[in-house]
Structures are given as structure tokens and as C-alpha cells.
């Protein structure tokens, strides 16, 4: 997970760039599926991977291949449990494991993840906000959510990882709260039993929140010396290249007024190449802009309880009518309707 805007544009990774460490997630997913009666050949269909490659350690896979694997999982896993099961195992075979087992608080865990999103964790990035005694993390997929199936799988994967980590280090998830961008799925039982936390659906963004108390609570079985030792060994690991789409998203967030040509120029590309790269990530410039605005608008309106006027000025609108029209385009509903929906929940 990373929040810093990087201006270094030379070392970036795209959705089809091989991603170091992602193969251990893919291998675990294939084995979990196999154990539940799904043949590995079916699961690996269209990924250009062979099951034997995992055992031989020769499979280095890209995010696009991992996404294809997720789509295949959704097709054959009737109970929709694989995303949750894999979520508990994301730290297996990961250099972050020892630091995670020694960290003194959730806050320190989060910082480790930001500093070194190793072996697949660069798939996710988060914007951290704090309001009235709670920490909020709006989570985005660094390589984009190419379709609703993949978006849901990734949300479940990461939510399950967070819930399992909290349970492992703190013991319970009662104070954890998740917001999911999609409507309540049919397999709600997996959310109830695997996350054991407060879950809200149709929230327009994927967000995790936790209270100050839990975020800063000192974890008793931590050891500062061992943590330092683990951090030193993490420091020797090469950091993964910054996801290009995440860099674009961060640049647009910082410079909301710039048009496609200017942004493409900043990323040293012609507008045509820039559009082609966005298309490769299954998105468009206007979709990205709308998504960023939607997240800010929904968060400020639902959590910070901002008025339409404040919100419009935050998002650089001079006219309230224009703001309402734009809001409806982003979210499918008007600001007042969204407030009503929240009250009725």
C-alpha cells in the first residue's frame, strides 16, 4: 500500500508487467481451489500458466494474469470462498511476515505496508483520513479494477487480509468497519463469518475504518528489537516498481484542473499512447477523474457530513447546479438522496 505521490516516472509497472512475488498468491489460490475440487487446468485457463510452473518456481506472473485467475475462480467456486481463504494467507512466503508478527500497533503495521508493499501488496493503495476519533482508509486497486468481478474479488481479498491480521494481532474485529462499493452479494455468509466486522454495501467506495483506540493500541506480544531486525531485512529487498495507473491517479488528484494532453505530457507520452495505456487498464481519462471526484464527494458527504456548498467549493465548482449534475453523474444519485439513503440504513 502506498500513499506518496512519486514524480519518478522511469520505473513504473503496467498491468501486464511481471510482478515479483505475485506467484506465491497465485500458487496458494490454485492449491486452495484444487483442494475444493476445482481442477488446476480449469482454474489456469487463459492465464498462459501451468500448474507445474508453481512447484518449479518458474512462474512470474503479471497482475493481468492474476486477474484472469480471479475471474476463473468466480466461475468455478460456487461458494465464493476462495477470495476470503486466500486473504488470510497473503503473508505466507512474504518477507513482511516477521515484521507483521513483531509490530507494536496497527499504526506501525500500516506504515510497514506503505513503506514496503512487497510481493503483491502494491496491488492495493490507500488514502488515509482521520475524523472524530476514527481512521479511514479509502482503498483503490493500483492497477485498476478491470471489471466488477475482479473488483469484488480484490475487495474481498484485502478485507479478509485486514480482518485476519487484526484477529491474529489483536484478537477481535469488533471495532473494524468495512464499506464496499457494490450491493450486498448473495454469498453474504462469507462476509459475516470471515470478516466478523461491521459491513456496509452499496457505499460507492471501498473503505476500512478503525477507532483511534484500536489503531494505536499497544500489542503485547511485540518485540521492538526483533521488529528492527525484520525492518532491516525488508530494507534490503528491492521495492516493486510504482504502478503506472496509481501514479496517474495521484497526479490527477493533485492537479484536478489539468486536461488529458497536459497529463499525458507529464507522463512523457503522446495523448494517443496515454489513451492506449489507459485502455489497457480498462479505464479512460474521464472515468478516472469521475472516480476520484466520486470518492472525495461520497467520503466528505457521508463521513464528514459536509454541506453541498462546502463540498462544491472543495471540488472547485462555482455553481451548485453544476455540482449537483456532476454528483449525479458520479454516483447515480443526488447529494440529498444519498444522505437520505444513509439515514435509512
Amino acid at each position, binding site marked *: 500500500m502506498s500513499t506518496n505521490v512519486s514524480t519518478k516516472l522511469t520505473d513504473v509497472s503496467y498491468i501486464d508487467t511481471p510482478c515479483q512475488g505475485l506467484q506465491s498468491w497465485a500458487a496458494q489460490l490454485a492449491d*486452495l481451489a484444487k483442494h*475444493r475440487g476445482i481442477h488446476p487446468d480449469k482454474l489456469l485457463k487463459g492465464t498462459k500458466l501451468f500448474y507445474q510452473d508453481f512447484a518449479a518456481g518458474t512462474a512470474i506472473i503479471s497482475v493481468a494474469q492474476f486477474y484472469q485467475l480471479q475471474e476463473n475462480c468466480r466461475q468455478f467456486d*460456487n*461458494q465464493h*470462498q476462495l477470495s476470503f481463504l486466500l486473504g*488470510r494467507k497473503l503473508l505466507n512466503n512474504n518477507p513482511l511476515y516477521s515484521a507483521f508478527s513483531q509490530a507494536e500497533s496497527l499504526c506501525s503495521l500500516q506504515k510497514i505496508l506503505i513503506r514496503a508493499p512487497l510481493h503483491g501488496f502494491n496491488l492495493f493503495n490507500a488514502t488515509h483520513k482521520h475524523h472524530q476519533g476514527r481512521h479511514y482508509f479509502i482503498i483503490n486497486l493500483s492497477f485498476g479494477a478491470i471489471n466488477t468481478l475482479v473488483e469484488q474479488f480484490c475487495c474481498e481479498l484485502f478485507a479478509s487480509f485486514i480482518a485476519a491480521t487484526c*484477529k491474529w494481532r489483536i484478537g477481535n474485529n469488533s471495532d473494524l468497519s468495512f464499506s464496499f462499493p457494490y450491493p450486498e452479494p448473495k*454469498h453474504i455468509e462469507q462476509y459475516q*463469518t470471515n470478516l466478523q466486522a461491521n459491513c456496509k454495501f452499496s457505499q460507492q467506495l471501498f473503505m476500512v475504518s478503525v477507532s483511534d483506540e484500536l489503531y494505536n493500541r499497544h500489542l503485547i506480544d511485540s518485540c521492538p528489537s526483533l521488529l528492527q531486525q525484520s525492518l532491516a531485512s525488508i530494507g534490503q529487498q528491492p521495492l516493486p516498481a510504482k504502478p503506472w495507473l496509481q501514479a496517474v491517479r495521484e497526479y490527477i488528484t493533485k492537479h484536478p484542473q489539468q486536461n488529458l494532453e497536459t497529463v499525458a505530457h507529464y507522463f512523457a507520452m503522446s495523448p494517443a499512447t496515454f489513451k492506449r495505456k489507459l485502455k489497457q487498464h480498462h479505464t479512460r481519462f474521464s472515468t478516472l477523474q469521475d472516480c476520484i471526484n466520486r470518492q472525495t464527494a461520497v467520503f466528505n458527504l457521508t463521513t464528514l457530513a459536509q454541506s453541498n456548498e462546502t463540498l462544491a467549493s472543495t471540488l472547485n465548482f462555482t455553481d451548485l447546479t453544476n455540482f449537483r449534475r456532476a454528483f449525479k453523474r458520479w454516483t447515480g444519485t443526488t447529494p440529498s438522496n444519498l444522505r437520505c439513503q444513509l439515514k435509512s440504513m
Partner: protein
Amino acid sequence: MNLSFLKLHRSLLLIFVVMQTSVLILTLSFGQYKGHSEVDWFDVAGEGGITAMTLVWIFFILLSRPKGRVTNLLFAGLAIMNLSMTLDFIDEFVSYSDEQAWLSTIESIPAPFGMILMTIALYHWHQEQMSINQQLRNRERFYREHQLSDAISGLASADYMKSQINRELNLLHHSQHGFSLLMLDIAQFDRFNRQFGDAEGDKLLQEFAQVITLNVREQDLVCRYASDCFIVMLPNTQLAIAEQLSSSIVGALEAFSFNSSDSTLTYKQKVHTSLVAATSADSTSGLLSKLHQGLLKNKHLHEYCHEQTA
């Protein structure tokens, strides 16, 4: 496709191959090719198709059944029917001299015997199925759909339980007593998994499923809801009786000791429960959510008590 059952039937496969080879040798050595112009290709397609289909049936029977009397009878019936059909099929290509005309006369004789054997086999299959249904009564109730069962525990899945709750809710205003739902959850299951591995965790779930199934009544339905959470549906059961049943199931589960695969570990586990009685105002999702909230509350209460005593 899982071909493991096929290995059990080596002798039957051998009999089948010997039978087919002898038929081919017999007919081809006595008969003469009719000539291209005399072959009726419509008959060839029809009879060839029937012969091929009976071969497919034999294959699936051997693939899906363990050894035993019913399997032998089904195989014998189908193989004899296939014999008749093969003779009939070869007949389309070869003609026999007058001395060997008996070959085309006898071709239809095996078929009725094969059908009689198949009928006897189906009767025994019915008997066998009744006994299996008895064993499965707590796992499937009135409806069978193999895609709705859980691969790890062999119990019904959450989707199947939801459809059954829906059914019971629809029937609620006709029945005198409402039904109750019991949710059971293994305490510290994630810790168990971390400590002993997923394979042992799955084994624990399987054995738990068996203990629950053994301790419920004939009319109850058990399902694995998700992860380490099970639901027992108790039809026509009021809350007071459901509570008694719940404590007897919990007693059995907590008394059960799990032995690891290498027999180095014996493990006893605590169980959290939640119980609700359905009313006609309830919905399936509402009931399940109420049940789950109750479970979380009991879990936190238990953890709190545990912390206090520690």
C-alpha cells in the same frame, strides 16, 4: 474427471473387452463384406449411435459406482444389451452364408435378457438408494442437487440452507410450531489453522460435521454456512426444546477429541452458539443476520469472561 472408481473394475473391463473381441472375430470370420452399394447408411448411423450410447452408459456406471452386486448387475445388463446391438450393427456391413445364418437370427436374443437383468439391477439400486437416503437425511431433506453441497464437509451449502429456510418460512402459517435455527462456531479456529495447517483444519471441519449429524434428530437439517460456522435447522421446534437440543449438541462437540493425522495431537475445542426462533414476520436474510449477530455477541461475551478470569 475423477477416474479412481474405474480402477476398481479391472475384471469387469476385461470381461467386456474379451466379449467384444470374440464377437468381432466370430462375425468377421464368418461373414463377408456386403459391398459399398448395399450398405444402408441411415441404419448404420442409427444402430451405431445406439451401440455407442450403451458404451457410454457402461463407462459412466463403472466410473460412478464402487464394486458390488448392484454394479455387477447393471454392468451385466448393459453389456448383454450392448452385445445385441453390436451384432445388429455389424450386420449392416457383412452378410452370412446360409450355413452361418444363425448369427443374424440370434442377434436379438441377448437384448431381452439384458433388459431383465437391468430391471433387477434397478430394483436393487432403489433398495440401496433408500438406505443411502436414510444416511443422508440430515444433509439434504427433500431435495438433491449436487452443486449445492459443500466440498469439504459433505454437508449442504449455505445456498441450500437459505432455500430451505425460505421454504419453511412460506409454510410457517400452516404449521402449529415454528422452526428454530442454531448456529455453531468453532472457537479459535483460525488459531488452530495457523498452528496445525489447513489440511488439519479441513479434517477438523469434516469430523465436526459428522459429530453434529450424529447428534441431531431425523427431521433436522445440517449445513456448513461458511468457514468454521455450521447451521442446524430444527423444524417444528420451539425455542425451549431447541435450547435443550443445542446444549446436547454442544456437549457432544466439546466432548469430542480431535486426533491429528499423525496421531501426535489430541485437541478439544470450545463452541460458540446462537439460537433464534422464526416468526412469520421474518425474512431469510433477516433471520440469518439475527443469528450471526447473536453469535458475535456470545463470542465477545465469552472472550470478555475469558480475559477477566485470565
